[in-house]
């Protein structure tokens, strides 16, 4: 079983626990079962005074332990106990004392938190050992840190893949740019692309050329004649056949990679699509509405999935027009679009409301008019490419990701933005690491399971 953790959370936990070295440190992780693994939601490192002074080995005082277990029970969380063995190197293992103490502690915890797994981890500076107890028995517990490549320590890297043995001529120039590891990491990713219009079609095209081989494509629109001016990969026949945009994207990928794995689970407001996106390595959002951005932000926070969002806009009337775009990368544990104040919640409410409620508002005359937005393929191309550079930074460690940047096409400027996590953020903070309990499927229009 894997414990999936946001790279910043894991880094802070690791640092705080090992700050007591050469003494051992201990913490309780509040985890959420999700799919076949666990998600790290939060943790609490025990302070000096909460450790049992009477014990010669590391032991958490009963009072602190009981209080923390009660908190976990109230929150409906699973416990992963973690402690350190400083100086043990990468081959760290549970000590004889651990082996003696763990069985009665497992029984005690599973009595207090019934029907939930219990995990135990021992960390050193460069390695860990883990075990998880479930109703089915005991199995190894692995750690999977999620985040940009430069932030994931090698010992907690879930994307361990064998480097490609043969240098494929096709990727030769790319391997010279990103290295064999970089190319391998790109090819190992499963990417969800939501929205396959002007920017999404260009993102898919670049992903396919880069060598991504596993896709979840989310879109249910059909191609119209007015799309031909900006839909990469479209032909003049596609509107006549009322081809779906997802079919155009699939065709673009298949022409480059006939054996690529491509899942097309429908629109974002379908259960299957929401479930599939919770299981990808990165979501690329290329939508034109904040309702979809809220859904993806929440889903990304709940399942600790990195979420790259691309937006373009041409606003105002000529000649005083503002033309530009935005690239935002919500990395697990980092600031989200709502932290960056990039989501208009009034628009969200309208995007997500039921048709019946919208009809009432239309009848009463206070529904917002949604005009047809102007669009330009070159603008989409610039912003999509800026987004792809962040994708490469994330996937290969080319450089650290720049999470928020803005492209001002009018002044031909790229502006880097500084955004912090908002502790009051109503989108990413409550959802962080909540997994299935976030009930993201409530956004589905086709009913819940």
């Amino acid at each position, binding site marked *: 079983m894997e414990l999936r953790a946001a790279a910043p959370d894991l880094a802070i936990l690791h640092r705080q626990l090992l700050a007591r070295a050469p003494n051992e440190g201990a913490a309780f992780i509040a985890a959420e079962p999700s799919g076949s693994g666990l998600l790290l939601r939060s943790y609490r490192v025990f302070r000096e005074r909460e450790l049992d002074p009477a014990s010669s080995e590391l032991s958490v005082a009963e009072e602190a332990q009981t209080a923390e277990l009660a908190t976990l029970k109230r929150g409906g969380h699973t416990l992963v106990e973690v402690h350190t063995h400083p100086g043990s190197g990468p081959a760290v293992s549970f000590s004889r004392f651990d082996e003696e103490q763990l069985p009665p502690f497992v029984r005690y915890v599973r009595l207090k938190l019934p029907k939930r797994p219990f995990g135990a981890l021992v960390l050193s500076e460069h390695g860990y050992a883990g075990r998880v107890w479930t109703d089915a028995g005991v199995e190894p517990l692995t750690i999977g840190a999620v985040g940009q490549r430069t932030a994931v320590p090698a010992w907690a890297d879930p994307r361990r893949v064998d480097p490609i043995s043969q240098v494929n001529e096709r990727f030769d120039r790319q391997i010279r740019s990103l290295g064999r590891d970089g190319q391998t990491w790109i090819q190992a990713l499963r990417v969800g692309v939501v929205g396959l219009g002007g920017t999404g079609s260009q993102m898919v095209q670049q992903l396919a050329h880069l060598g991504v081989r596993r896709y979840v494509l989310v879109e249910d629109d059909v191609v119209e004649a007015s799309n031909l001016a900006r839909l990469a990969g479209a032909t003049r026949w596609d509107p006549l056949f009322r081809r779906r945009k997802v079919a155009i994207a699939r065709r673009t990928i298949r022409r480059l990679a006939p054996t690529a794995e491509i899942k097309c689970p429908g629109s974002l407001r379908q259960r299957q699509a929401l479930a599939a996106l919770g299981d990808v390595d990165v979501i690329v959002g290329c939508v034109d509405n904040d309702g979809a951005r809220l859904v993806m932000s929440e889903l990304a926070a709940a399942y600790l999935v990195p979420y790259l969002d691309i937006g373009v806009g041409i606003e105002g009337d000529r000649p005083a027009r503002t033309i530009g775009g935005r690239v935002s990368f919500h990395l697990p544990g980092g600031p989200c679009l709502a932290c960056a104040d990039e989501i208009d919640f009034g628009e969200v409410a309208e995007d997500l409301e039921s048709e*019946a409620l919208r009809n009432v508002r239309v009848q009463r005359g206070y529904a917002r008019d949604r005009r047809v937005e102007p669009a330009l393929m070159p603008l989409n191309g610039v912003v999509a490419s800026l987004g792809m550079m962040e994708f490469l930074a994330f996937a290969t460690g080319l450089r650290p990701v720049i999470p928020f940047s803005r492209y001002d096409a009018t002044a031909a400027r790229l502006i880097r933005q500084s955004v912090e996590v908002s502790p009051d953020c109503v989108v990413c903070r409550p959802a962080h690491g909540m997994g299935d309990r976030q009930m993201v499927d409530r956004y589905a229009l086709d009913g819940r399971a």
Partner: protein
Amino acid sequence: MHPRVAEEWPEIASVYLGARHIPSPERVEVDIDLEVSVYDRPNTSVAVLIPPGYRATSPDGFLVPAGLRFADGSNLPASDATGFGMPGWLLVSFHLIDESGASIWRPTADFQRGDNLIGYLASTESFLARRCN
């Protein structure tokens, strides 16, 4: 139950005794007292539909049972709610906006430090007490 409503539910249930959570369409129903000089009855149920994006997005309007009238026999400014799965109820138009039409809903991650359902229900009570003005 919507996860944000679940966080607030113990508080809602302690403030509004007999509060009900109905899953479809997802809503919270409470019973409130009315001013008999204003309405044709001393109390009523009030339902608030939970938008999927709650707490980021606020509830919009509230529902009362069809048949609730002002004391003078006139109807409330409301429309039939059958269309969204609540036959026998009326949707009362009520928005948390300022004079310029901007939303005054200010939620936070911790519901106790920002706008929440209890506050929304309290606002609907005040609105009803003001004869829906």
